[in-house]
């Protein structure tokens, strides 16, 4: 049986680990809440730009716009993962989903350009011989819009130059604290229906932020004046929509990352506590055995001296 000393060391280290994971859990919980709030603060923006697009999409100008056309060329994959691990299966799930999509679209390695947002995804694809053109790391939870615009502008640039024909985003959608779903969405060519789905999914299924406020259900008017013309409005609107898509992919991933980490840390804390108490029990047994042995040694010694 293990010595008392080594058991003591083990119990101590398990308790220490438990404290650390508990602290990480608390930090993640706060960060998750913040990320969720931020995701929702952009909702009015997303909903409005979408409704403008939907109203404009009836006109022929929209259908002729380059960003809505399908053509041949490379595909840009924006993969949004976390920088750090300790978040359960979060990152591997997104990467698997992205790989499945590449297979489904029948793309060769040379046909894919990767933009890695977050270290994990970028490293994974870089080590497998994909062309990782851009890599963003250490993006704060606050995600500034400018950072996201860098991604959007790059994609738009490539699209304009004809290098890229389509763009897909792989990220984790936040459903609830215990449920995150890896998703792949096509953002170029722009599909109004896909955006509608994306905007609808901004709201989590459960919890504080799930009910839809009444004013968001406003009915769109049928008569609409467009000034000066649909084309110039679209020129401003479409990049904004892309920006929203990229921004939301990121913010949803952040919320998912923190909730996944929170859950992972919660189970780590539970496990550490369980191990500590089981070792404490063994420790007590060993200690009791040692006392019993000593007592019997003393009594037998006394018996012998009689």
């Amino acid at each position, binding site marked *: 049986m293990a010595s008392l000393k080594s058991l003591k060391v083990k119990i101590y280290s398990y308790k220490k680990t438990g404290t650390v994971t508990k602290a990480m859990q608390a930090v993640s919980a706060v960060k998750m809440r913040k990320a969720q709030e931020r995701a929702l603060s952009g909702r009015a923006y997303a909903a409005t730009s979408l409704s403008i697009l939907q109203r404009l999409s009836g006109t022929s100008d929209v259908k002729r716009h380059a960003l809505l056309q399908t053509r041949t060329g490379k595909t840009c994959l924006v993969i949004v993962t976390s920088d750090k691990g300790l978040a359960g299966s979060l990152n591997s799930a997104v990467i698997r989903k992205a790989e499945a999509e590449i297979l489904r679209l029948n793309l060769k390695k040379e046909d894919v350009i990767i933009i890695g947002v977050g270290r994990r995804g970028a490293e994974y694809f870089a080590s497998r011989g994909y062309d990782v053109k851009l890599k963003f790391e250490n993006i704060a939870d606050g995600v500034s819009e400018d950072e996201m615009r860098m991604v959007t502008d790059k994609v738009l640039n490539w699209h304009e130059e004809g290098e890229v024909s389509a763009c897909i985003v792989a990220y984790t959608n936040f459903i609830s604290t215990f449920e995150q779903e890896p998703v792949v969405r096509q953002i170029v060519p722009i599909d109004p229906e896909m955006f509608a789905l994306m905007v609808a999914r901004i709201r989590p299924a459960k919890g504080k932020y799930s009910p839809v406020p009444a004013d968001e259900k406003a009915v769109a008017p049928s008569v609409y*004046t467009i000034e000066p013309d649909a084309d110039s409005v679209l020129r401003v609107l479409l990049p904004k929509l892309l920006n929203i898509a990229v921004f939301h992919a990121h913010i949803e991933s952040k919320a998912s990352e923190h909730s996944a980490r929170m859950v992972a840390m919660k189970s780590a804390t539970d496990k550490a506590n369980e191990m500590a108490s089981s070792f404490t029990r063994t420790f007590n047994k060993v200690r009791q055995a040692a006392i019993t042995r000593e007592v019997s040694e003393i009594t037998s010694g006394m018996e012998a001296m009689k």
Partner: protein
Amino acid sequence: MSEKTFHLIISSVGETHFDGEAVSATVPGSEGELTVLAHHEPFVTALRTGSIVVRLPGGETKKFPNSNGILEFSGNKAVVLL
């Protein structure tokens, strides 16, 4: 008689700069400066670089910088996307 107001939201991705009642909003439209009042007809326009001046009930004014936005007005509600 109280002033007629409309609901104005000025927001950029992930941040709302203004959300409340306004009497008028003067914006740099792509075809020249324009002022929208309450119950404007539904319309949408692209904006040029410049500043948006919002007049609040009570006469107070607020100014917001704008670079490349869109204004949408429908159902007595205006939304400016920066």
